[in-house]
Structures are given as structure tokens and as C-alpha cells.
């Protein structure tokens, strides 16, 4: 169990739980973690099956941890020690599901007004109108969920959750499947809304772009444990776990052995696999001879058709193009240097350099593009 | 005539051994027929499969070709109608018994049935009286006739409930849902009911005689065996069984009144 140390804001969401995983399809394990979510947007990042949805369900009151404590500021929502367990109805926490979960038989307006039934009619109407405006879906108020698009649906769902003035907000991969422009528009709206309210927002995603766009903080989750927290760059650009590395977009994961350490330069040399390839990577906590894993993004690899000279990059490996595969607007090049690498190049580059399978090329890797992974 | 009968009996007994005949019998014959069938089977090796039910029902079914070999009706009229309609084997109509009805009450009834007879039904403790449906059950019709003759029908009519047949009428009373019922004497003195209630025999003058007749069905494939069974019923041994179970058999004889 890791305890996250950070400034304790009075209305932060704190959860320390141990709970069995809710999803029956994957292998069962136990969620055992402690997180703290201060006001602002915190990303919960991890591969599928890490336990993110289970954590959200526990915080919302839709699942019961075996043991633990969940508090929002001074309000205790769940505590096995004192046998407190507030039902979801009383927790005042907003929850946006991946599927929006709008009530299909009610209009947009009725959906948004659903949580406000205890208010007098005129107050309710006013608040509904305001939030529909804020999220730019005023014109859809009379429509049914079946008559609006996915992006509009998520906006409405967001409005529905926020109009009740929750003390915290949980979002479970709400922007999956939406196009980039739509995503950023919704993200902007959420940001704007939160700038005023400043409640803890826990946002689950496995998409890197969303992390970069939104995150003030990232909590990385894997197999039910918190493996890392901090600023997005720190957590995602230096992943310490293999699966996290794969989730964060490191296409190359290479096994290697430490050859020697150069502490003065802050680097160490690693032999890749059983080959003669050696690369220089940032200095890590490893003794000579230990086995390590090196993660490199495909987008960080350069290809050259002539042996390059005068480069600052310390790693230049000679090899042969094994295959070129087009994927969308990108070409995936597999290069064999004794060890197989995956690199991304643009179609323009392929044309200009006349790259073909079998062509002799040189790979260029910056030291700092290589990350040590456990 | 006797010779012919004897010869017929003798000749039909042997070749028909091992056969099974299907008998449709009125509900009131339940216990009598059981014994008669068993005896017949022991004697001749022919099995008798009996189905009990309401005579009206069987009549309709036989009219429509139901595969019975023999029909023991609780009402002479049905047998006659079958004969007239050509569904009965000519010359087989036989008046096998005269039925009697009783008022039957479960034990512990606060009404003194023995002393009051029919008038016991007027008591307020008797809320429901079960009879067989007079529309199609001869025992039901006789019950209604007796009530009318005794002059209490109008008073009693609101309390009447109608069973499908006398067995169901008996079931209504035995389950306690009706406090009294009109059932066949044969049913009341049967082993199943004999010791579980009180009965009062309705005097024969109060209702037209319930003449019960049997016929061999014309479409039967086993007429010889069927006729043989009928002969057994007619024999002295058969009559003795009938008597024991509360049926008056011709020639008319006094039915023994069993005290409760």
C-alpha cells in the first residue's frame, strides 16, 4: 500500500480501500490502495483491468470495499472501523459513466432535472437552464437521448451530474469514441466549470492525449495498486512498470544487461539481448550485470539512409528495414538491428528517402528517449 | 332361455380369456365395481378397466365414438337414448340397480340428523349443501325432487352448491367446505366414507326411483367379453356384491339400513 503524500486540502477526496475486483471476466485480484484527490482534475491512468472502475464504484457507493475508509473533506462516506456506510444517494458525488447512461424515456431537460426533484419548480428550471447553457446544449432540451449525438449525450450527462452541485466528480472514460475536436471542447467546458467550483475530480482514462490535455495530477494504477503519482510528465514519460509503459505508448520494450555505469555523465551502457547492440541510457539504480528493460517510443526513433555524423544523439545502430506498414497517416517501420525496433515515420519521409523493405538504414536514439522500466 | 344364457356364458368365457375391456361407470359405482371387476378377473382371466365419472359425460362421449365396451349409467334415460340412437348393442340393456340417496354430514355436526331428517338442512349451522349438478346427474335431480316433495326446496335452494358428480359433492362435504350433502347410498356406506360421518337415508317415496341401466356399446371390439361381464353382474354372485354396496337389485329387495 502506498500512501500519497501531498498537501492536505480541507475538501479533498481521500480513499483507502481494499476491495475485490468487480469485473468478473478478467482474473480476480484485490484492489488495495490509498489515494488522495485534491480539488482540481486528477487523472486515474492505467491499463484495462487495473481496477479503475472498481475504485470509482467504491467511492460512489455502488460497490462496497471489504475494508477501508473513504472521506470527502470532513464528511466520512465509508469507514469499516466505525461501521459508517452512506448509500450512494447521500454521498453527493457526481458520476459520469462511459456510456452516459441517460434515461432514454426522458427528454434532455428531464434528464438534467432528475437530481433536482427536491427543489421548488422555478429554482429547478432556472438551474437546469443555466447548466444547459454552460455546456452548450440548450437547444437540445426537448430532444430524447436517442435523437442526439454521442458527444452531445456526454455533455448532457455531464450537465446532469454537475447541476446537483456535487462535492466531487467521478468520470469513467467519458470521452472514448469521440473525435479529437469534440473531446477538447468538452474538456475545455469541464475545465471552465471547475475553475469556478474547484471540487475534486477523478478522471479515469487510458488515453495519453487526454492525460496531456487535462491532467494536473496523474495516479497510475496497475493490478489494483497505485504504482506512481505526480505530474503527467513524470508518471507517463518515465514509466517504471512494463504494462504501464505499454499503456503509455512505448512501442519498444527491450530486454538488456547493464555493462557499465558512468556516474559522472549520468548514463550507463546496456547490451540489448544477446546481440552486439549497445546503447546508452540514463543512469538508473542497477548494478553491472543486472537485467533491465528499456522502453523507447516509436515516435522518438529517427531513421537515416546514410551513416550519420556529428549528431548529439549517442545511440546510432545499423540495421535493415524488415517491413513497412501503413496505418492511417503514419508508416510503421520494423527495423532489425540484431534486435527488432519499431519506428514511426511519415509517408513523406518514406518517399523522400525511398525507403523499402530490405534497405540498409541507421537508427538514431537519444539517450533520454530511452527509459528504464521494471 | 336359461339354456341359451348358460351356453352363451360358457362359450364366451373361454375364448375371451386374457382380454381387457373398458367400462364406463357412474361415479356411485366406485366401490361396488371395484370388487366386481376383481372377482371377474379372477374367474375368467379377463381384465376390466373401469373409468368413473358422470353419466351425462360418458353419454356424450360414447355418442361421439369413445372406445368403451360397456356403459353403466346412473340414469336409465341415457342408456335408453343410446339404444334409440343405435350406439348400443341391441338387446343388452339391463336395469342393474336402483339407487338410493342419503343426506350425509361430517362428524361433530351440531345438528341432530337422525331426529330431524330432511329438516336438519334448515338449521342455520348448515350454510352450504352440496349436491350433484341436477342438469346432468340423476342423483342431483333426485335430491332436488326430494327437497321439493318435502316442501323445503325454496328455503334450501340458496344454500345449494353443485358438484360435477356425487363424488365431488362428497368431496365438498368431506373437506368441510359444505356442511351437508346429498350423495349416493353406495358412496355413503363405502369403506372410504362409512365411518367418517353420519347419514340419513331419504325415503324412497320422496323421489322418483333412480333406475340405473347398463348397455354394451355397439362399436365395441370385445363384445363377447363385455357380455360375459354383464352376465356376471346379473348372476347371483354379482347381485350379492351390489346389494352389499347399497344398490337395490331386481327383483326388489330391502336395502339394509346401516346405522351410523
Amino acid at each position, binding site marked *: 500500500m502506498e500512501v500519497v503524500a501531498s498537501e492536505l486540502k480541507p475538501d479533498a477526496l481521500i480513499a483507502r480501500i481494499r476491495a475485490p475486483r468487480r469485473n468478473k471476466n478478467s482474473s480476480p485480484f484485490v484492489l488495495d490502495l490509498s489515494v488522495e484527490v485534491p480539488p482540481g482534475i486528477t487523472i486515474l491512468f492505467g491499463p484495462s483491468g487495473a481496477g479503475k472502475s472498481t475504485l470509482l464504484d467504491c467511492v460512489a*457507493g455502488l460497490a462496497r470495499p471489504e475494508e477501508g475508509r473513504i472521506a470527502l473533506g470532513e464528511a466520512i462516506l465509508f469507514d469499516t472501523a466505525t461501521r459508517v456506510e452512506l448509500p450512494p444517494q447521500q454521498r453527493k458525488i457526481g458520476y459520469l459513466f462511459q456510456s452516459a447512461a441517460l434515461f432514454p424515456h426522458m427528454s434532455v431537460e428531464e434528464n438534467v432535472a432528475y437530481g433536482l426533484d427536491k427543489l421548488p419548480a422555478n429554482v429547478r428550471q432556472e438551474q437546469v437552464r443555466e447548466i444547459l447553457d454552460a455546456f452548450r446544449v440548450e437547444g437540445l432540451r426537448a430532444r430524447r437521448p436517442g435523437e442526439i449525438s454521442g458527444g452531445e449525450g456526454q455533455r448532457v450527462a455531464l450537465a446532469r451530474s454537475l447541476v446537483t452541485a456535487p462535492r466531487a466528480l467521478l468520470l469513467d472514460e467519458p470521452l472514448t469514441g469521440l473525435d479529437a475536436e469534440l473531446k477538447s471542447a468538452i474538456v475545455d467546458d469541464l475545465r471552465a466549470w471547475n475553475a469556478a467550483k474547484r471540487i475534486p475530480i477523478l478522471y479515469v482514462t487510458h488515453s495519453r492525449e487526454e492525460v496531456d490535455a487535462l491532467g494536473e495530477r496523474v495516479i497510475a494504477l496497475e493490478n489494483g495498486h497505485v504504482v506512481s503519482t505526480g505530474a503527467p510528465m513524470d508518471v507517463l514519460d518515465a514509466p517504471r512498470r512494463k504494462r504501464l509503459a505499454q499503456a503509455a505508448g512505448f512501442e519498444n520494450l527491450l530486454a538488456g544487461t547493464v555493462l557499465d555505469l558512468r556516474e559522472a555523465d549520468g548514463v550507463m551502457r546496456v547490451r540489448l539481448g544477446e546481440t552486439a547492440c549497445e546503447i546508452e541510457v540514463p543512469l538508473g539504480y542497477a548494478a553491472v550485470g543486472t537485467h533491465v528493460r528499456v522502453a523507447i517510443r516509436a515516435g522518438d526513433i529517427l531513421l537515416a539512409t546514410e551513416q550519420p555524423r556529428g549528431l548529439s544523439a549517442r545511440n546510432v545502430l545499423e540495421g535493415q528495414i524488415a517491413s513497412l506498414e501503413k496505418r492511417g497517416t503514419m508508416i510503421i517501420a520494423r527495423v532489425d538491428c540484431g534486435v527488432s525496433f519499431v519506428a514511426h515515420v511519415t509517408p513523406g519521409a518514406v518517399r523522400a528517402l525511398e525507403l523499402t523493405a530490405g534497405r540498409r538504414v541507421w537508427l538514431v536514439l537519444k539517450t533520454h528517449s530511452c527509459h528504464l522500466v521494471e | 332361455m336359461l339354456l341359451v344364457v348358460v351356453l352363451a356364458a360358457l362359450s364366451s368365457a373361454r375364448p375371451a380369456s386374457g382380454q381387457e375391456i373398458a367400462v364406463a361407470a357412474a361415479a356411485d359405482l366406485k366401490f361396488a365395481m371395484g370388487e366386481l371387476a376383481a372377482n371377474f378377473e379372477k374367474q375368467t382371466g379377463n381384465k376390466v378397466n373401469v373409468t368413473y365419472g358422470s353419466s351425462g359425460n360418458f353419454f356424450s362421449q360414447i355418442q361421439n365414438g369413445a372406445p368403451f365396451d360397456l356403459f353403466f349409467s346412473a340414469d336409465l334415460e341415457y342408456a335408453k337414448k343410446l339404444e334409440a340412437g343405435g350406439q348400443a348393442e341391441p338387446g343388452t340393456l339391463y336395469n342393474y340397480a336402483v339407487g338410493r340417496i342419503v343426506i350425509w354430514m361430517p362428524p361433530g355436526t351440531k345438528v341432530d340428523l337422525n331426529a330431524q331428517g330432511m329438516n336438519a338442512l334448515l338449521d342455520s349451522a348448515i350454510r352450504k349443501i352440496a349436491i350433484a349438478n341436477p342438469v346432468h346427474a340423476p342423483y342431483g335431480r333426485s335430491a332436488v325432487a326430494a327437497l321439493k316433495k318435502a316442501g323445503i326446496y325454496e328455503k334450501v335452494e340458496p344454500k345449494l352448491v353443485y358438484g360435477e358428480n356425487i363424488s365431488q359433492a362428497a368431496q365438498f362435504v368431506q373437506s368441510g*367446505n359444505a356442511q351437508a350433502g346429498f350423495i349416493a347410498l353406495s358412496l355413503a356406506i363405502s369403506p372410504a366414507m362409512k365411518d367418517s360421518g353420519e347419514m340419513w337415508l331419504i325415503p324412497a317415496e320422496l323421489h322418483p326411483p333412480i333406475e340405473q341401466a347398463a348397455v354394451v356399446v355397439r362399436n365395441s371390439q370385445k363384445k363377447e367379453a363385455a357380455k360375459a361381464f354383464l352376465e356376471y353382474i346379473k348372476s347371483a354372485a354379482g347381485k350379492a356384491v351390489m346389494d352389499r354396496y347399497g344398490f337395490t337389485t331386481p327383483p326388489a329387495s330391502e336395502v339394509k339400513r346401516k346405522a351410523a
Partner: protein
Amino acid sequence: MAGPLLLSLKLAAVVALLLLVVGVTAASWLAFSRWRGKFLLESVVALPLVLPPTVLGYYALMSMGPRGPLGKLWIAFFGHGLAFTFGGLVLASVLYSLPFTVQPLTAAFGSVDRKLLDASAVLGAGKLRTFWRVILPLSIPGVVTAVVLSFAHTMGEFGVVLMVGGNLAGVTRTASIAVYDDVQALDYAAANQTALVLLLISFAVLCAVYGMNRRVWKLWPAS
């Protein structure tokens, strides 16, 4: 002829409405409970599907009698028995048609997207409000099916009515019993008449309800 038919209609209507209340209660428990012994209740509810109506009628008759548990209570309260009354028929019919109501309702409630129920809870709605505003409106086709099935099933009921009814005109002589009586009395003309009208009424009711059901589907697309 009108008497027994009206009685059948009355019985079917009363039973369908009563079963709606009982059925909704039972079905919402069955759809959402996670008790391990749930299968026991499901089996009990399904019993009338497999039991012959005469068996049901027999037990009903016994329990309504003064020695039966129900009979004792009823007589203590009301002073008279339950058999041979309209009330007795209603009770027996409710038992007999129970699965025809509970099963479609359970299926309809259970098919409501669980995420909608979660959303409702998180937005502050208690169980009752969630049921009334989310589950029920999305289950309308199931409710209609349940009501229609139990109505139609009760209209056609014979065996149970025969066992506990006592064939009293205007009280327990339903159309199905009347047809049977007429056949017994060899009055085939009357039997035919009653039977035909019964058939037409049942068919008309079913048509009306299924036709209306389709329009209801348009109002509430259970997406």
C-alpha cells in the same frame, strides 16, 4: 348466456389487476435480489405452470376448508367459508395465473440497463423513486404482456374453478363451466353460442392490447 360471460370477464379483470400488484412486488424482488436462495422462490412461482389445474384446485379446496389454515382465518374473520364464493375463485385464480404475471415482469425489470439504475442512485433517487421513474416506464411492454397473459389465462380457466366453485349461477358459474354444463345437458346449441362468444371476446381483448402495445413501444423506446 350473458351471465357466465360477464362473470368470466369480471373474474379475469379482478385477477389481472390483483396480480399486477402482487406480481410487481414479487418481480421487483426477483429481478434485483442477489440472495442465493432466490431459485426457491422462482420455482414456487413457476409451479402453477406445471401443476395440473385440478391439483391446484384440490389443494385450494382443502386449504379453504375449516380444517385448512386459510379457511380457519377466513371463517374467523368473515363468518363463512371461502369456497363457492367469488372471492374463493379470485384467490385460486391468482395462484393459478401467478407465473403468467411474474415471469414477464421479472424479465422486463431485469432487462433495464443497470447503469441507468446506478445513475439514478448517484443522482439521489431512492429505491422507490428509481423504480417508479426509471424501471417501470422502461418495462411497460412487459407490464402489458403480464396483464394480458393473466387476463387471458383466467378467462379460459376451467379445472380450478370446477374444483372450488360449486357452480353457482352468477357467482361461480363462469363461461367455461357453463359451456361444460351445456354439453353435459346435451344442449349443444347453447354450448356453441357461449363458446363462440367467449372466443370472440378473448380475441378482441388480445387484439386491442397487442395493438396498443405497439404504439406504447414508440412512446418509450427502451434503448
